[in-house]
């Protein structure tokens, strides 16, 4: 804990201490959403970004946002609702998530969708079902474009400023024990202080880029791959910890299944399993119900030999991919040579160095399950979560997609209340301190619904800005 009064300050240099209404730490989707919403509410806002560019992990994401009840869903004949979204979020999180945080997401999601569209967000015309979704609700955007366009809107208000390459180093409380009222910042080769009268928002992302911190909570992922924004080092988390902030869901840090273990150019997971593929290990044997959350699939994969498995599919499943959805864009990966392809399962097995008889037996057994409508081995009933009928793997050519788990984000973090105020270890709000985006824990619980992390960034960012504007943070 650092007192404002102890902050280094050159009284002759006015730029060593700045005053704003609202200070946002981090310029990913949560940070820019909060900055724009705050500016709309009339707050003079400063955004600090540690990296030279805005975007963070949001800009590198798959670009899926989970919304329910949208016009795009209706145009595609998809029935969805707040109630179904709430039930899915709780269920996929195995009820380990915080009900109030989930409710905050659900209650604000549709208005946030409309707000994003009003600010120029361009969603694709189709929605896809993915991890944890009973109805197709992955709304697709170019995530980097989304962050850039929101930032452009925020900047155009004239009320928001951005300082890049500026790292928030310490939170400061008024008088040592009062509300959080300032941040000490390292930037431009020196340390300066920014005071914020209406609140400080931590939108600083997770810590997938900090192997030491990940190891502390999830040593089983030491061998996993990590793909995240360069700034995802847990800065916000540690600053909040220093003030006694509580945190949750760290036991559920997981990798996402479907990353090619060798390819270095394509960071996104490929989820052919959600279109009907099965997952087999190096022995040619299924090991999991493939319809569950890709986080849980990641866990299951890490427990297999070589921490690497194969998604096995046929031509029909490959052709059911969707090139507008990164996780379902099979054709591009085929063109990039990432799929192993063969005319027979035996030839496929030979290329993948899987015992051919084992693979043939596994596929035949699975196809029999599909025909009978009952998966005796793992109880798979749908393509993904509660959506989609299973399909056989029978039409050549056959494909294998080598897959391991990749940690894109940590999806755990600070405890917050419904207004995004950070809670201390006794459950009391820490005055002046808000959090949004990946640094927040409690939404995902034990697993993860596709699109909920990126959508939560925008939703919680807006809530936090509203809290600050209404004076609720202090």
């Amino acid at each position, binding site marked *: 804990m650092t007192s404002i009064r102890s902050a280094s300050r050159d009284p002759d240099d006015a730029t060593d201490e700045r005053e704003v209404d609202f200070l946002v730490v981090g310029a990913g989707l949560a940070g820019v959403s909060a900055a724009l919403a705050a500016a709309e509410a009339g707050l003079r806002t400063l955004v600090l970004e540690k990296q030279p560019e805005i975007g963070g992990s949001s800009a590198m994401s798959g670009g899926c946002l989970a919304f329910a009840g949208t016009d795009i869903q209706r145009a595609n004949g998809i029935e969805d609702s707040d109630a179904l979204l709430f039930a899915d979020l709780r269920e996929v999180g195995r009820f380990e998530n915080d009900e109030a945080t989930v409710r905050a997401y659900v209650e604000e999601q549709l208005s946030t969708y409309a707000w994003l569209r009003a600010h120029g967000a361009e969603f694709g015309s189709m929605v896809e079902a993915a991890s944890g979704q009973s109805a197709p609700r992955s709304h697709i955007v170019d995530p980097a474009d989304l962050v850039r366009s929101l930032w452009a809107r925020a900047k155009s208000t004239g009320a928001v400023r951005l300082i890049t390459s500026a790292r928030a180093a310490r939170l400061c409380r008024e008088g040592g024990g009062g509300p959080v009222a300032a941040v000490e910042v390292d930037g431009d080769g020196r340390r300066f202080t920014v005071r914020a009268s209406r609140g400080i928002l931590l939108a600083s992302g997770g810590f997938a880029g900090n192997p030491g911190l990940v190891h502390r909570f999830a040593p089983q992922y030491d061998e996993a791959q990590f793909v995240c924004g360069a700034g995802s080092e847990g800065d916000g988390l540690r600053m909040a910890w220093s003030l006694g902030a509580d945190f949750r869901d760290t036991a559920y840090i997981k990798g996402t299944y479907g990353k090619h*273990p*060798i*390819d270095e150019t394509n960071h996104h997971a490929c989820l052919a399993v959600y279109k009907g593929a099965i997952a087999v290990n190096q022995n040619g044997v299924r090991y999991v119900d493939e319809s569950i959350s890709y986080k849980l699939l990641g866990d299951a994969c890490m427990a297999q030999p*070589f921490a*690497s498995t194969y998604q096995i599919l046929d031509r029909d499943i490959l052709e059911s991919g969707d090139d507008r959805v990164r996780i379902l864009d099979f054709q591009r990966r085929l063109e990039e040579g*990432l799929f192993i392809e063969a005319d027979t399962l035996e030839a496929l097995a030979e290329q993948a*160095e899987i015992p051919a008889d084992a693979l043939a037996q596994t596929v035949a057994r699975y196809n029999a399950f599909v025909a009978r409508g009952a998966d005796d081995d793992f109880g798979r009933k749908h393509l993904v979560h509660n959506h989609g009928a299973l399909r056989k793997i029978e039409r050549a050519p056959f494909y294998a997609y080598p897959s*391991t788990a990749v940690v894109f984000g940590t999806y755990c973090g600070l405890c917050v209340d419904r207004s995004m105020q950070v809670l201390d270890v006794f459950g009391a709000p820490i005055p002046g301190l808000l959090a949004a985006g990946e640094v927040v824990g409690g939404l995902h619980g034990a697993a993860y619904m596709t699109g909920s992390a990126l959508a939560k960034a925008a939703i919680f960012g807006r809530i936090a800005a509203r809290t600050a504007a209404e004076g609720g943070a202090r």
Partner: protein
Amino acid sequence: MKVAVLLAGVADPRHPLTLRSSRPPEIRRDNPLVFSPFDEAALELALKIRDGRRDTAITAIVAGGAESDALVRKAAAHRLDSVARLESEALAIWDVGATAHGLAEALRGLATRPDLVLIGREFGDFDDGALAPCLAAALGWPLFDLAQFARWEGDELILVRDGRSAEERLGLRPPWVASVTNDRRNRLRHPLMKNVMEARRRGFDVLTVAPVVPSATLKAVAPARERTRREPCRFLTGSVENQVAELAAYLQPWRALR
């Protein structure tokens, strides 16, 4: 068939080049290395040959110092029969003739003579394409230059390259040296994770050859001089017609140079 693949690696173009030394071995140590497209093509050609005939044995030799061990393991991840690193300190790699003699000596030192030696059309960062012919000369073997593809026709291995107006296919009676250029048909496949993990644990030999006396002494390696533009880059703007007209006007003086 016994195939030897010679690999060198190049400075990874995704990283800025660091030049703190004028000695090639130190320059390699200071910069992350990757296989060049030509290295990859040579390795993939060897794998294609094995795909066609399972009794093909592949040996990969990576020239370099200890900084190249990761490349050795990367090659080994393709489940090769043997891999080795050739200590490159003795090779005088700025002298193509001396290097060719060093590589030839290393190949002669293998337990079994290869029937075919595959080498990328450029061997590392210091070769501009002369090494493969020099190596063939040093071995006294024929050279098939710029191979793009390989396939078996019965028991005969056919190497394929695009000629000026036709595709050339040559049947090989070993031994041969073949330089390989990149082609969409020889894009290096991804190794299986199981083999990557096994390659991490695998040991390999480090080969040495007697120092070769170079015909020239390397005095210095320095950064290339930066070229300056005569005028800054700019986008053509306006309607398509305007852009076409502006581009045509810009190119007009070039016509006179033809």
